[in-house]
């Protein structure tokens, strides 16, 4: 269902920027289905965990105020070539996805 893409690039501070693009509707729970008039239930990513070589280094908390197909970017200091960055997200329905990439 879900696709999660990750991109890692060097930043000016000498570390790496990690960008994650997750495919997700990020429904607020406030929108109505135009045909039936029923509210579309809230459905959004809640947490996104970033790990460097398996050690969690950051956790992003998301709400329904984050755009559809969210892009979340963080910086990681001290990663070197060959290290693995992984991301793992879970939404309010308990569904999730993960992605992994090696630092070049």
């Amino acid at each position, binding site marked *: 269902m879900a696709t999660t893409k990750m991109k890692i690039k060097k930043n000016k*501070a000498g570390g790496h920027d990690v960008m994650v693009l997750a495919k997700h509707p990020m429904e607020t729970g406030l929108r109505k289905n135009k045909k039936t008039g029923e509210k579309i239930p809230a459905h959004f990513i809640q947490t996104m965990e970033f790990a460097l070589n*398996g050690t969690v280094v950051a*956790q992003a908390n*998301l709400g329904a105020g984050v755009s559809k197909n*969210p892009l979340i*970017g*963080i910086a990681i200091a001290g990663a070197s070539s060959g290290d693995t960055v992984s991301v793992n997200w879970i939404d309010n329905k308990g569904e999730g996805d993960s992605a992994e990439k090696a630092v070049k």
Partner: protein
Amino acid sequence: MKRRIFLKGSLAAGTVAVAAGAGLLAPARVLAATWPEAAFAAKTEADALRAFFGDAAVVDSDKVSLKAPLQAENGAYVPIKVMTSLTDAEAIAVVVEKNPVPYVTSLQMTVVAGGMYSARIKMAQTSPVNCYVKAGGKLHKVSQEIKVTIGGCGG
């Protein structure tokens, strides 16, 4: 199957993180694994900040910067980027004052994570966007108003 393996892996990794964290930072500031529900439920900025950061003094800071458009292309998709030179930053929160849920997103991090957080957020209307970085027991604040307009045609 694949997911199960991953979960198992991350569980193990979690323990490592706790151990490493305890060694690195004496008061063991371990990443909260839970989603800060109270902050997201808060109706006002002040309540959200208290729920997420606890009580901390807010200071305007030049060690925190925000890159964002002065006028958004589209309120449903506003890119923002918070950067900080504070080396002891623990958490970043993004608050859109006039959104129905002002507390939009946040990041908790260890020292291994650098001081940057970027996201694309929804904005209901023109509003100040306030970003807070917690470091050394204080909340370092940077703010910018982002205009959200009704477009003519665009492209």
